[in-house]
Every structure is written in structure tokens, then in C-alpha cells.
């Protein structure tokens, strides 16, 4: 079955430092999604990448999808305390013609201190 690995498992940064989490799939993905889960909350969708080599930005967050569509990264520039949470990547796989499911990575927990 599909496996999606994510590193690091945990990172602690000072506010203002940059942060990156990496995601690798054992198989080629249709697309990749990123979710954020705040402490005590549930995962919330951030973005979806579809094309090989795609790069998307959301303010201080930069998302990349690898050329082979098997890896992805999320980079946060100048972290803030509001960035605290666990970031999950999720690979999309089609199990019928149109129906899909996600395989989630193990997540990276980000802690930001002043």
C-alpha cells in the first residue's frame, strides 16, 4: 500500500527562524495536500498541489511538489507563535475512477518560542 513519510517528527524554533518539513511518498501521487492541526484541534486544509514541480505561496508559507510527484515540502519563513501546530502532508490516490482517498504523513509538530 501507499506510504507517506514525513520528517522531522518534531521541531522547536525561536520566533523569527525559518522552518521546513519534508514529505516523501513510496509511489507517485495524483496530487498532494497539506493540513495544519492546532493543539487540541482538528486538521484543517491548507493547500493542494497538482502539477509536477509546482510551487505555491501563502504569505510566509511556501509549498513545493517534486518533479517526480513523489515528494513535497512546506517552508515557513520567519515563524510566529501562531504557526504552532502539527503539519501533515497527504497524498491523494484514486481507488476508483473518480473516488479518492488520502494517505497522511506522520506529521511534523512545530513548537515556536519567543
Amino acid at each position, binding site marked *: 500500500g501507499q506510504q507517506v513519510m*514525513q520528517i522531522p517528527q518534531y521541531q522547536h524554533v525561536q520566533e523569527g527562524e525559518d522552518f521546513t518539513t519534508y514529505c516523501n511518498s513510496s509511489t507517485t501521487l495524483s496530487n498532494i495536500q497539506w493540513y495544519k492541526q492546532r493543539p487540541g484541534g482538528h*486538521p484543517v486544509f491548507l493547500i493542494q498541489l497538482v502539477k509536477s514541480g509546482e510551487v505555491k505561496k501563502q504569505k510566509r508559507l511556501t509549498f513545493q511538489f517534486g518533479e517526480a510527484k513523489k515528494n513535497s515540502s512546506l517552508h515557513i519563513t520567519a515563524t510566529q507563535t501562531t504557526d504552532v501546530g502539527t503539519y501533515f502532508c497527504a497524498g491523494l490516490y484514486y481507488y476508483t475512477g473518480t473516488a479518492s482517498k488520502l494517505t*497522511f504523513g506522520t506529521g511534523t509538530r512545530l513548537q515556536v518560542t519567543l
Partner: protein
Amino acid sequence: DVKVTQSSRYLVKRTGEKVFLECVQDMDHENMFWYRQDPGLGLRLIYFSYDVKMKEKGDIPEGYSVSREKKERFSLILESASTNQTSMYLCASSTDFRGGLAKNIQYFGAGTRLSVL
């Protein structure tokens, strides 16, 4: 706004009990999912359903079953709860048929933290 509602935030059950976790979504989504979340293991898919009365096993279906009698409702059943089923359970729904950003995105409920004693 999409709303996915899970019936309980916290649940305490005894070993051997039959446990029902209920999930309701109000967006007419075709797909519904049950995950469990454990520290260091991420979200692991238990079962999913892409239509009423349809179900598919996920990655860790052992010890669980599901029911989807109506499109908006997806139930997770622990036939005989065991201590290793103590976990956070998350329900999600998605659609494959709308264009643009909404397609394939999963919307999660608040989760049910289940403790089996």
C-alpha cells in the same frame, strides 16, 4: 461552511463493550472517512465509504466495522473494545465532483477521544 459533527468529544468505555462513534456531515459529500490519531503515527485510515451502503477497508480495519445507511451519516463500531483502541478518532468527509478548490479536500470533525479501561 462545511460542518462535520462527531457525537462525542470524550468517551470512556470498558474492555469488551460495544462502542458506537457517530459522524454527520451537512455538505452532501459522497465520501466519508474514519481515522485514528496516535502520537508519532499520524492519521491512520480505518474505513471509508464513497457511497451509501458502500464501505472499503483502510489501513487498520481490524477490530472495527462501519455503517453508512444514509449519505450524511457514517458510524464507526468497535465490536468489543480493547485497551489498544484507546485513541483519538477523527471523522472526515470529501467530495470528488465539484470543480476548483473544493474537490478532494477533506473536512474533519472535532474528534472523539476514546479511553478504553
